[in-house]
């Protein structure tokens, strides 16, 4: 992307004063250090509490603890009668949970061989091991997440009421393995607000993808089924090698309330590994995601049997926060431009500090802000390795010195502290932003210090240093060719009289804006014609491959797999994407959550049903299969149930579904 050279800002008197002001606050150690200049009118008030930066230890969210329960029956209609193991699961479970569901393509390969089993052969692929019938399979993992109110101290001495998953903010880090199925029972005990949970970056059935209209209502539960599988290649085999996810996050996704719910604490990480990534860990190329015996590589579990996080693989959620005088989280119900906080937080703590050993650490950066864009770098200017873009590992590790992250972007990086023993460095953000609409530009002379690393822990020689360097091969990428695309779609993200639209249309829950034939490859052209706003666009279900950004070759890390793309003002991105495995309605939308809440969104429906119709190819009308969506511009389904919820329920409770 083009660099922002707004250095002229520093020369203006306002910029000078701003820098001086920030410098003064930085040295005084009193927050809020971000002097967000209020706009001409109605700028939000600053957080009125002081704190000393770099004194709060970085919180590392605890791992989710598996539990046991009886999942809902996919053949039982949702409702009062849906009782599983004595518990009411009103919204049921995905129909894909049924063992003979058509999404399984008649193959019994969704559950992989257990990679912890001593007979597992690491010299063969995941596919080859799965073919060994003697190897036991992974067992289904179950988690229970109860969304409930909680109170935490974001700033010292200040109690802040929040929403939480299981009284934890960030929510528990979910650990998944490719080929290990999972059911998460989400229960809404928030009392008075609707929710929907989206596992961002995952290849998931429609029922469990967190469609904004499929709420989990107060007092109700839904079983979210995550098969943790990948799409199939052309030969019909699951494509573990090129498609397995690594760094995902889960967060609220309820229509009209997403921004509010996420800012109030409903977010957490989900870290996945497949055979390929686990082998990289076993071979010492990457740090272990889990806590393992350094020699035997056996998992070291805690007293409850829960797998623990490896010490050198740390998720970092970059957030910003603003508090009111009573400690509650500032919220402007009328702001649909974008929320900007004035306290920079990582994993919920303001400008925290982390003590590290002089070695390489894998840091999974995630821009979890509603509207703030970032450009991160290290304060000493040293390069760091980027391992992954968004959910997926790159084909090889790439050196970076600065990294642009829009809201929803993940950047999986390795920072090497081995030459910094006894020193301190900072993770810095050099993207200035004073309004929710878009960033102002990069200012390298006025970095915001996000967190501090103190390299004062003694090196634990039991764990060998990982060997990844610039150029190390990671996850191969199967290039999608432009010629494979059978359909081209065009989406223009625009603003109309203060409200957000796509293709000059407002969102409708009942309209299949993109009815896609299951298995198709499509080219989508995404355009942001407006100069005044930036829109990070996120598409659910599968990765997409960016082929052109403003007519030019995209930057290296955007060429492979992404699940979101930042549309700066006046830009056009062209992407290739496949739509496989699951049918039903999904969404794509702007991931500025405030825009998302005014429905800057469209439905895509992946359709198994096709009919013979016609299409235009090279100006001539030819016979072609045409998707038959179930979204029909009136209701969600006609007449079969969609996503496991019967049409009759939707018809009698229309307000529940849009």
């Amino acid at each position, binding site marked *: 992307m083009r660099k922002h050279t707004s250095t002229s800002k520093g020369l203006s008197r306002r910029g000078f004063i701003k820098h001086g002001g920030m410098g003064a606050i930085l040295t005084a150690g009193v927050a809020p250090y971000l002097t967000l200049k209020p706009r001409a009118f109605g700028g939000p008030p600053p957080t009125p509490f002081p704190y000393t930066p770099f004194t709060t230890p970085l919180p590392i969210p605890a791992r989710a603890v598996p539990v046991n329960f009886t999942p809902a029956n996919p053949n039982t209609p949702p409702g009062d009668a849906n009782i599983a193991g004595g518990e009411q699961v009103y919204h049921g479970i995905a129909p894909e949970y049924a063992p003979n569901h058509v999404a399984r393509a008649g193959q019994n390969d969704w559950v992989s061989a257990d990679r912890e089993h001593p007979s597992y052969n690491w010299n063969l692929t995941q596919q080859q091991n799965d073919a060994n019938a003697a190897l036991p399979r992974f067992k289904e993992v179950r988690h229970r997440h109860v969304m409930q109110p909680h109170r935490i101290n974001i700033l010292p001495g200040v109690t802040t009421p929040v929403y939480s998953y299981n009284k934890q903010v960030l929510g528990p880090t979910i650990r998944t393995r490719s080929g290990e199925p999972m059911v998460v029972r989400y229960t809404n005990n928030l*009392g008075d607000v609707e929710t929907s949970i989206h596992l961002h970056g995952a290849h998931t059935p429609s029922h469990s993808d967190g469609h904004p209209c499929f709420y989990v*209502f107060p007092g109700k539960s839904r079983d979210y089924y995550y098969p943790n599988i990948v799409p199939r290649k052309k030969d019909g085999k699951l494509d573990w090698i090129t498609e397995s996810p690594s760094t995902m996050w889960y967060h609220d996704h309820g*229509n009209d309330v997403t921004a509010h719910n996420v800012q109030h604490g409903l977010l957490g990480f989900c870290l996945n590994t497949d055979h390929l990534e686990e082998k990289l860990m076993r071979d010492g190329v990457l740090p272990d995601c889990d806590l393992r015996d350094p020699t035997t590589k056996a998992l070291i579990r805690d007293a409850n049997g829960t797998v623990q996080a490896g010490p050198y693989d740390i998720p970092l959620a970059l957030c910003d926060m603003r508090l009111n*005088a009573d400690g*509650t989280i500032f919220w402007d*119900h009328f702001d649909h431009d974008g929320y900007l906080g004035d306290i920079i937080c990582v994993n919920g703590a303001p400008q925290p500090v982390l003590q590290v050993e002089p070695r390489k650490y894998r840091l999974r950066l995630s821009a979890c802000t509603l509207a703030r864009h970032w450009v991160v770098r290290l304060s000493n200017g040293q390069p760091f390795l980027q391992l992954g873009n968004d959910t997926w590992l790159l084909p090889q590790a790439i050196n970076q010195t600065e990294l642009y992250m829009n809201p929803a972007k993940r950047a999986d990086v390795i920072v090497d502290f081995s030459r910094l023993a006894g020193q301190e460095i900072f993770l810095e953000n050099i993207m200035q932003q004073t309004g929710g609409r878009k960033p102002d530009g990069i200012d390298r002379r006025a970095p915001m210090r996000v967190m501090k690393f103190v390299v004062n822990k003694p090196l634990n020689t039991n764990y060998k240093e990982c060997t990844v360097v610039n150029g190390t091969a990671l996850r191969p990428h199967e290039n999608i060719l432009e010629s494979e695309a059978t359909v081209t779609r065009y989406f223009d993200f625009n603003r109309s*009289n203060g409200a957000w639209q796509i293709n000059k249309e*407002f969102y409708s829950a009942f309209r299949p804006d993109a009815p896609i034939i299951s298995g198709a490859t499509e080219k989508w052209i995404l355009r942001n014609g407006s100069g005044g706003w930036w829109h990070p666009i996120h598409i659910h279900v599968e990765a997409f491959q960016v082929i052109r950004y403003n007519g030019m070759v995209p930057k290296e890390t955007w060429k492979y797999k992404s699940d979101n793309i930042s549309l700066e003002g006046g830009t056009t991105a062209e992407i290739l994407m496949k739509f496989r495995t699951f049918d039903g309605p999904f969404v794509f939308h702007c991931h500025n959550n405030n825009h998302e809440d005014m429905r800057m969104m469209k439905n895509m429906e992946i359709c198994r049903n096709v009919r013979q119709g016609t299409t235009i190819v090279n100006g001539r009308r030819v016979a072609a299969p045409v998707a038959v969506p179930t979204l029909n511009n009136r209701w969600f389904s006609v007449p079969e149930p969609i996503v496991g919820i019967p049409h009759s329920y939707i018809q009698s*409770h229309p307000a529940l579904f849009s």
Partner: protein
Amino acid sequence: MSTATAFLSRREMLFGRSCAETKPAQPDLGYRASAVVARMSGLATPARVSSRIPDCQVVSHRDERFRFISDLVADRRVMMGFIYTHCEGICPTTTKHMFEAYKILKERSTEPFVMLSITIDPERDTPDALLRYAVRNGVANIDDWHFITAAKDDTSALLRAIRQNNAEAGDDLTQNNHTGVLIFGNDSRDRWGGIGAGSEPIHIANTFERTARTRSLRHFAGFGTTAEEQ
């Protein structure tokens, strides 16, 4: 920053405000989180979102005088659209969709709510002009729908408070490309939201119903199978 001045420009803070004079002194609470969150955590009930909206004097198309918040918003569910009677752009659609949504909502529930069409052209849109406009749109005889006008400065302040002023144009009340957003809220629940007025009326109704809770929470709580729960 005191609540009373939260939405005023520096000039207004220096020179006083017609609306602010009528507001009782408030403790310095600043903005508020969703009261939903604060209440469930046992914090003292904070000032509502509506306390930051000017309690201006307005006149309706029936020549009735109201205080905007005290009489029309406080403790009520409200849907607000922004029009001017000479508009040949989006306003006809805004009013039409509000009417369609109104009918859907009335079919489903007897819970009361207020519809407000606020003119952004107060100089030309007298109560009389608003009456003619309401008649033209077939909604003049709906008791709980008010077409209202306020003094120019008050209209400006009101629109700014709910972010529906024409910020891009520089002048809050510029008609060209004015807001097409419907603002809705439930003051008791302290929940507010917005949706493009050009959205389908069914969505406007559904969103309003869900956010403003025109039906009690138990209607949204699940798939009731008994007649009483419908």
